[in-house]
């Protein structure tokens, strides 16, 4: 999709390329939308920031990075920013800063300025931007090669159980809460979307209550009235009821109404009513 957009922009921009010596025209080209009516919007999510947009524009159109056609590039960049349907200020801050930097650079190129420095080297206002782009591009390439390295659990695997240890006496592993929580976060992350929501919804208090009830019922059946103690808060009642319903649904407990007394009894599924 991005390529399509770029091709369209490029075609359009070839005109302004040729008119490079007539900067006033470039400003007119800023409003590309009127000239390319059905240009699909490019999501900012597709980019890793303003430098990434610029680099992709430069490389895909085979522009000379050391002699960037600033007018064209600025127009294209602004077009991408302008075509965002919702401009999230938080996300787009850097994008807007880059837009103003580009415009500033462009105007500096248009204004009279010293062309060589004290040592006789050429001054190019674009130099800093170019340096930034090149540095970023390097890291982009590096991150690609980093991604290609054989990675543990993706490309290579190691033995992760040590059955021999059962035969050798060694200090017991220590309990570490951080490791435990990290392990559960890992589990959640690996879960399918639907499962993840299910697990996230269940609150610890209902779980705890389910366990409490189960432990309570180990010693024998209880009546519902016994368990819903009137002194409890309303919140505790709700939690207990939710826990009961869940246990019942999962067929871990049975709920029986005694015909004579109408008392509702709770008992573990594997116990006989007493």
């Amino acid at each position: 999709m991005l390529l399509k957009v770029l091709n369209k922009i490029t075609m359009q921009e070839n005109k302004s390329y040729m008119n490079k010596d007539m900067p006033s025209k470039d400003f007119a080209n800023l409003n590309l939308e009127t000239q390319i009516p059905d240009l699909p919007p490019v999501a900012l999510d597709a980019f890793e920031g303003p430098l990434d947009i610029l680099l992709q524009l430069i490389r895909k159109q085979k522009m000379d990075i050391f002699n960037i056609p600033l007018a064209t590039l600025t127009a294209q960049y602004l077009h991408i920013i302008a075509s965002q349907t919702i401009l999230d200020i938080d996300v787009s801050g850097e994008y807007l800063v880059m837009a103003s930097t580009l415009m500033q650079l462009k105007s500096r190129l248009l204004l009279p300025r010293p062309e060589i420095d004290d040592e006789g080297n050429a001054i190019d206002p674009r130099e800093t931007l170019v340096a930034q782009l090149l540095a970023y591009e390097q890291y982009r390439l590096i991150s690609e090669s980093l991604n290609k390295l054989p990675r543990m659990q993706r490309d290579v695997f190691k033995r992760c159980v040590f059955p021999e240890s059962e035969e050798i006496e060694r200090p017991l592993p220590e309990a570490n809460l951080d490791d435990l929580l990290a392990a559960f976060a890992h589990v959640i992350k690996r879960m399918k979307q639907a499962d993840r929501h299910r697990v996230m919804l269940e609150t610890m208090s209902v779980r705890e209550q389910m366990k409490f009830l189960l432990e309570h019922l180990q010693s024998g059946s209880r009546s519902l009235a016994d368990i819903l103690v009137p002194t409890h808060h309303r919140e505790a009642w709700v939690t207990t009821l939710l826990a009961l319903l869940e246990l019942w649904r999962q067929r871990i407990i049975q709920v029986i109404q005694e015909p004579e007394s109408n008392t509702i009894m709770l008992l573990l599924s594997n116990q006989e009513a007493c």
Partner: protein
Amino acid sequence: MLAQQLEALILASETPISLEKMRDILATDRSSLQFCLAELELFYAQRGIRLMHIADGWQFRTAPKYAPVVAKLWQTRAPKLSRSMLETLSIIAYQQPTTRAEIEALRGIRVSSSVMSGLLERGWVKVIGRKDVPGRPHIYGTSKQFLSDFGLNSLHDLPDASQLVDMHDIPLKEMEKNDKKN
């Protein structure tokens, strides 16, 4: 080629890997597998690591002969809890009362009985009931020992699952995006 695939599978598997599982993964017939496994067993017969046929599967283990050396390695420091143990324990803590089937569904992988018995032995986990479904599976929960060893006053002290994810800041949004793409 088959031998190499088998070696990789056996090393990476968390449990002794059965012939059936190898067959499913490699789409090869039993007899080729058996032949290949016999060859591998021989190949490693004189090495420091052995291919062993244990319970219902195959596993690489250090040769018993070198146990003294291995013991020296292990006595030097307390081991870390294995990942499978931590994951299983965390699921029990958060999903209790829960069953092995549920744990396996959440982990997406079988829970070996050594992990389960390890947790029971440490006294972190206990059986708190049975479910009234075919097979009448055990229902597991955490114990007082678990709370005290992990420095918790009550299960309330465990952060909610959603909070936990925030804490470890898993980029859920990104994952959702990827999910949609696939």
